[in-house]
């Protein structure tokens, strides 16, 4: 049962920004809806207005250049990420992580912007984007700002986003293109599930980063270790970055153990 709300679908970016300004905290941006509509159904979120961003050109599409790197519109779906030739070739970790989300039906709807803005500690695109050094473009009627992904997440389901702001694009620097990578996700079944623990590693000639999901209030990254860092060193850095809890999905103890297992498994095998 969804409570009554207004549905607005602006076609122009400027209209969207005005609507956001007007409705502010009463509005939620709707992209794939696969998280938002669940929250609304459970009554844990009761916005008055839903503003659909899917019809706005600036929120769509994937662009790549050797100068600027990859720019992904916030309303790009997981399937679009998974199937995009440049993403597959140059940012395979991102394509892989998008494929980890939900079921096929969900991936056809769920968007990168939605996954990041929901800001769940288990967001599959969270730890993978963190290790790729992603930056987030926030837009509002007041202007545009771009912040590093690691500053974007501020707590469990909390971000830097102001009430009148929207995530328009996510940028991935060209330096991360072609990084060696690996990702492991612990689930409770082999079918679709949230990450009970996830670990993503990316390595370039300049650095090595390990991102961890479901082990802290936000996805976290232990960034810029030397590219030849040992399993021991990476593990130490990772354990320093996390503080898992006991919950219905797993215990703290098991999560800590699995993070170590995953690092030990992934690091020697980086593709």
């Amino acid at each position, binding site marked *: 049962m*969804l*409570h*009554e*709300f*207004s*549905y607005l*679908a602006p076609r122009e970016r400027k209209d969207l920004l005005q609507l956001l300004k007007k409705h502010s905290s009463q509005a939620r941006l*709707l992209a794939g*809806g*696969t998280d938002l*509509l*669940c929250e609304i*159904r459970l009554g844990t979120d009761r916005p008055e207005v*839903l503003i*659909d961003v*899917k019809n706005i050109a600036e929120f769509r599409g994937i662009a790549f250049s050797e100068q600027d790197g990859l720019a992904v519109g916030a309303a790009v779906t997981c*399937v679009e990420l998974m199937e995009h030739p440049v993403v597959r070739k140059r940012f395979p970790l991102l394509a892989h992580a998008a494929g980890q989300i*939900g*079921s*096929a*039906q*969900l991936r*056809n*709807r769920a968007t990168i912007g939605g996954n990041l803005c929901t800001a769940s500690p288990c967001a599959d695109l969270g730890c993978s984007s963190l290790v790729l050094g992603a930056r987030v473009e926030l837009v509002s009627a007041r202007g545009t700002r771009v912040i590093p992904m690691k500053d974007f997440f501020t707590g469990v389901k909390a971000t830097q986003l102001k009430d009148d702001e929207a995530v328009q694009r996510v940028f991935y620097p060209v330096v991360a293109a072609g990084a060696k990578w690996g990702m492991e996700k612990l689930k409770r079944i082999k*079918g*679709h599930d949230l990450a009970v623990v996830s670990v993503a590693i990316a390595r370039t000639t300049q650095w090595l980063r390990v991102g961890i999901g479901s082990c802290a209030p936000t996805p976290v990254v232990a960034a810029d270790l030397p590219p030849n860092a040992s399993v021991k060193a990476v593990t130490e850095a990772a354990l320093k970055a996390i503080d898992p809890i006991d919950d219905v999905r797993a215990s703290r103890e098991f999560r800590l153990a699995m993070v170590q297992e995953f690092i030990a498994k992934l690091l020697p095998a980086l593709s």
Partner: protein
Amino acid sequence: MKIHVKVNGKDYTREVAGNRTLLRFLREDLGLTGTKEGCGAGECGACTVILNGKTVNSCLVLAPEVDGGVIETVEGEAKNGKLSKLQEAFHRNHGVQCGFCTPGMLMSVKSLLKIHPKPTVAEIKEAIEGNFCRCTGYQQIIESVLDATGQLKPRKEEIRRVR
């Protein structure tokens, strides 16, 4: 707001509220009750329909979002009073038990067959992973798909009987 959609090849224009889900729109506004609600939270896949060529959980799509869209549901599968090849295979192979997951299951399989006309077992399993079935254990569903695509080895479908 007013929306125009094409459902199973037929055009509809309806006034819908902002909070109308596609699932309730199909079931309550268009009377197409074949599509079922199993959880309302996008987990079980019972409400799967094909929207603009892609499967979606219709419980997590708003009707106003699909304005101008093309939708396929279970009701469009049989043509001229005849089961489709896929439906016939499900019928033959006991790919249905209680039937509540079936409409969504068919849509996921239909979508798969557009991309992989002769899917492997692994591809079938991957494609229906988002559709819970509590009755069949999936095996006879998988065999139905193999049969529909001419890949079922007859030997495998019967139980071994021992006296």
